[in-house]
């Protein structure tokens, strides 16, 4: 005889539980943590470099870098002054909570104020895997086109902060900002947004000011 058993559990609940345990570690160490997601080439590593430049040694920064095989990104983050740990995902298209947990074991969180997790370049899969970070950031960029919120609703729905990089290219590329912003608004109303250019430096002050503010409020939590 067969019996039907109710389960009603999220399929990725195991990852969600590990993410919650990562979050507890960040909170206990009072380290503000960001999950940086983007498509390949949007400027994740450049944002990290520019953030390091503007922080000018004010904060102790750790970077966890997810990459398919190389250590190019981690090398760049280290050259910019961060303590960088490379996770080679071995072909996986996203980071998950357990990879971050393993990287944390090498890091020693207490020595840091800010943790930047650079996810694998991909707009689909990272959206489904929480890492436990305080804030999920999407770095979009002008050359990707203004239709991305319409094509990748999943990632736009799940983020807390949006960076729009390469705004210096707006005069050269047919990118309808209104159309783009409407798509974002439909999926994530009132989303905090930083239009920036890593090349010219425009908008970066606002972004770094916000990061510093988050780190400060994290430190003040009892």
């Amino acid at each position: 005889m067969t019996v039907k058993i109710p389960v009603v559990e999220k399929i990725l609940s195991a990852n969600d539980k590990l993410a919650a345990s990562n979050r507890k570690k960040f909170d206990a160490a009072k380290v503000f943590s960001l999950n940086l997601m983007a498509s390949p080439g949007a400027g994740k590593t450049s944002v990290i470099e520019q953030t390091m430049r503007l922080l000018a040694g004010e904060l102790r920064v750790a970077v966890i870098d997810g990459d398919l095989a190389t250590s190019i990104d981690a090398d760049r983050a280290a050259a910019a002054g961060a303590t960088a740990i490379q996770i080679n995902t071995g072909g996986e298209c996203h980071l998950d909570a357990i990879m971050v947990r393993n990287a944390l074991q090498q890091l020693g969180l207490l020595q840091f104020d800010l943790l930047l997790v650079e996810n694998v370049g991909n707009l689909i899969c990272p959206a489904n895997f929480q890492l436990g970070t305080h804030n999920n950031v999407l770095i979009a960029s002008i050359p990707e086109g203004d239709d991305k919120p319409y094509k990748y609703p999943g990632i736009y729905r799940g983020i807390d902060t949006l960076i729009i990089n390469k705004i210096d290219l707006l005069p050269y590329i047919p990118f309808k900002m209104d159309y783009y912003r409407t798509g974002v608004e439909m999926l994530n109303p009132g989303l905090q947004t930083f239009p920036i250019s890593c090349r010219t430096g425009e908008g970066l002050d606002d972004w770094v000011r916000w990061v510093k503010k988050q780190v400060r409020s994290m430190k003040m939590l009892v």
Partner: protein
Amino acid sequence: MHELTVTQNLLELAERYGTEAGATRVTDLYLVIGQLSSFVDESLQFYWDMISEGTLCSGAALHFQRVPAWFACQQCGTEYPLERELECCPACNSPRITLLRGDEFRLESIEIETSQRNEQTE
């Protein structure tokens, strides 16, 4: 692709719930998958057949209940489905919309076989 991770998670869930219920075999898994979750059912079944071999769930069939994405307009209350592309409210053109359903990704239930003794005690 993360179909492998997904099937591993499915197997863990089905084995845990099956074992707790005294299953001798898990025969069916019923999944609820929203239109906005980015998983392809055919490839899931492919990975599932490989990964469940030799387990309590060996040979179990995956059943997919697809949930179409529906939005509600916060301005005028109109409810409408996601068709080809995300769009503003078709009645009043407002971008202020909320997702009603369509982002589900869960294991709803499993069907199991139990041994004779378990059946009698039920």
